[in-house]
């Protein structure tokens, strides 16, 4: 019984991490049709922000909003400098962000070297609840991640900005012709996507080593979430994270993390078989 509870908590923790990492990916793809292969690097930079904040004597909790701000600015700059020039060509954006990910990793390596950095756990120890001991910080992580994801999704569904965004997703041409400033909406969406990645990075910083390659570890999981959850609904991120987390936790229990990822991959391929996609005509 306790073992099951522990697995459930592990699963929940995995779900929360996957959801918050995949959130920005889903926003950027859903709204702009862009696959951002540098998203993992945004998470990694978020973790470095937490490290710098810690080195500068700031509280870990302050590093979360700080990471959001830093990455919003970085994301917005990238949108203006790069993404805007190649917009609406999905294959090209994949390639460009592929290259961008190398640049970001290497730039971080030049500044911080390859050495592993760390941030101390702000709430060490474990909490006994539901009859099991579970690290306190993981409870905190689950809580904050869920709040960030839900608040972001609510913002996209309830606010005026969210309405604009949904209008663009539904029919970009009509939105343009209704007077919606789609350019600014793109700018904000890419920035917000990066900001949520930054929060995710700062949030997981105390749990593992911070190094330039760290972002790569998040990429497969986050993409599986987006593929499984579907590309065009923001809430699909939650559904996808839930499914992937459930499958992975289940498989980890019996085998290990790699087989868990393979299981999730098989699931994604199966999902692909269920969809019917029309034949593409001339590419423009």
């Amino acid at each position: 019984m306790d073992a099951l509870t522990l697995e459930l908590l592990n699963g929940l923790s995995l779900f929360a991490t996957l959801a918050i990492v995949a959130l920005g990916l889903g926003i950027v793809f859903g709204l702009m049709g862009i696959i951002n292969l540098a998203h993992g690097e945004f998470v990694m930079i978020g973790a470095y922000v937490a490290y710098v904040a810690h080195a500068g004597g700031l509280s870990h909790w302050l590093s979360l909003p700080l990471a959001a701000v830093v990455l919003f600015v970085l994301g917005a700059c990238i949108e203006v400098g790069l993404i805007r020039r190649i917009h609406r060509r999905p294959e090209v954006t994949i390639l460009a962000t592929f290259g961008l990910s190398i640049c970001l990793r290497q730039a971080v390596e030049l500044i911080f070297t390859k050495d592993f950095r760390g941030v101390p756990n702000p709430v060490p120890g474990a909490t006994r609840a539901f009859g099991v001991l579970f690290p306190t910080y993981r409870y905190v992580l689950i809580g904050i991640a869920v709040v960030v994801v839900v608040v972001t999704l609510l913002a996209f569904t309830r606010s005026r900005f969210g309405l604009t965004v949904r209008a663009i997703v539904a029919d970009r041409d009509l939105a343009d012709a209704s007077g919606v400033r789609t350019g600014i909406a793109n700018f904000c969406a890419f920035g917000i996507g990066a900001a949520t990645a930054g929060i995710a990075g700062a949030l997981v910083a105390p749990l593992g080593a911070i190094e330039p390659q760290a972002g790569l570890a998040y990429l497969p999981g986050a993409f599986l979430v987006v593929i499984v959850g579907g590309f065009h609904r923001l809430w699909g991120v939650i559904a996808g994270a839930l499914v992937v987390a459930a499958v992975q936790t289940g498989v980890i229990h019996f085998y290990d993390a790699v087989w868990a990822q393979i299981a999730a991959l098989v699931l994604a391929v199966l999902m692909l078989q269920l969809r019917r996609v029309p034949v593409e005509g001339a590419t423009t």
Partner: protein
Amino acid sequence: MRFEARGLHSGYGSVPVLHGVSFCVSEGEIVALVGRNGAGKTTLVRTVVGLLRATDGQLRLDDADITRMPPSRRVRAGLRAAFQERSLFSQLSVGDNLRLSGHPVAEHGRVLAMFGESLAGREAQRAGTLSGGEQKMLAAASALASTASILLMDEPTEGLQPSNIELLGDALAAARQEGRGVLLVEQHLALALRLADRFIVLEKGEIVDAGAAGEAGLADRLAGRLAL
């Protein structure tokens, strides 16, 4: 405000549709643009709004050249269209559609009342679940209730029942009274003959005929242009 198109060329991808179209819409007049299917009417509307790029020619609002402006800036400059198809965000509610068109929530009642009772109080309904005619009315009402000084109405009567066509005609006449210019794109002549001050006929992407209201034999001439 006066809208003018000079030698407009446009098309989809490599397919040219408009071959040098020139016309103008001045303050307080209704210009009817008629033509058969495939004549290029919708292409013209999409080019004027900015969803298609003009490959040649010029678009002007008063003294301003708007040929290269993005669509949203043209809207703010005072140009607004109600499209023939896909005129609403069908997944969003009626109220959200109005908000996106720039109508504050307080005004929704007034906009929806423009066509009598049929739309009143339906803010919360999803726009896609309205009937075809109701969707056309909502799009027309949203454009008419805006502050735009040049209105493009692409086949607004399609799918409307006769009593609502009457109401639409009254609303268009009222817009003219207020000094706004209207380009009424129509395939059906009845409303256009009743309302318009001037007529232009589009065929194969060129203007092949023009006339003013009250010209002798105009109705027959236009009907001849449109008949099979």
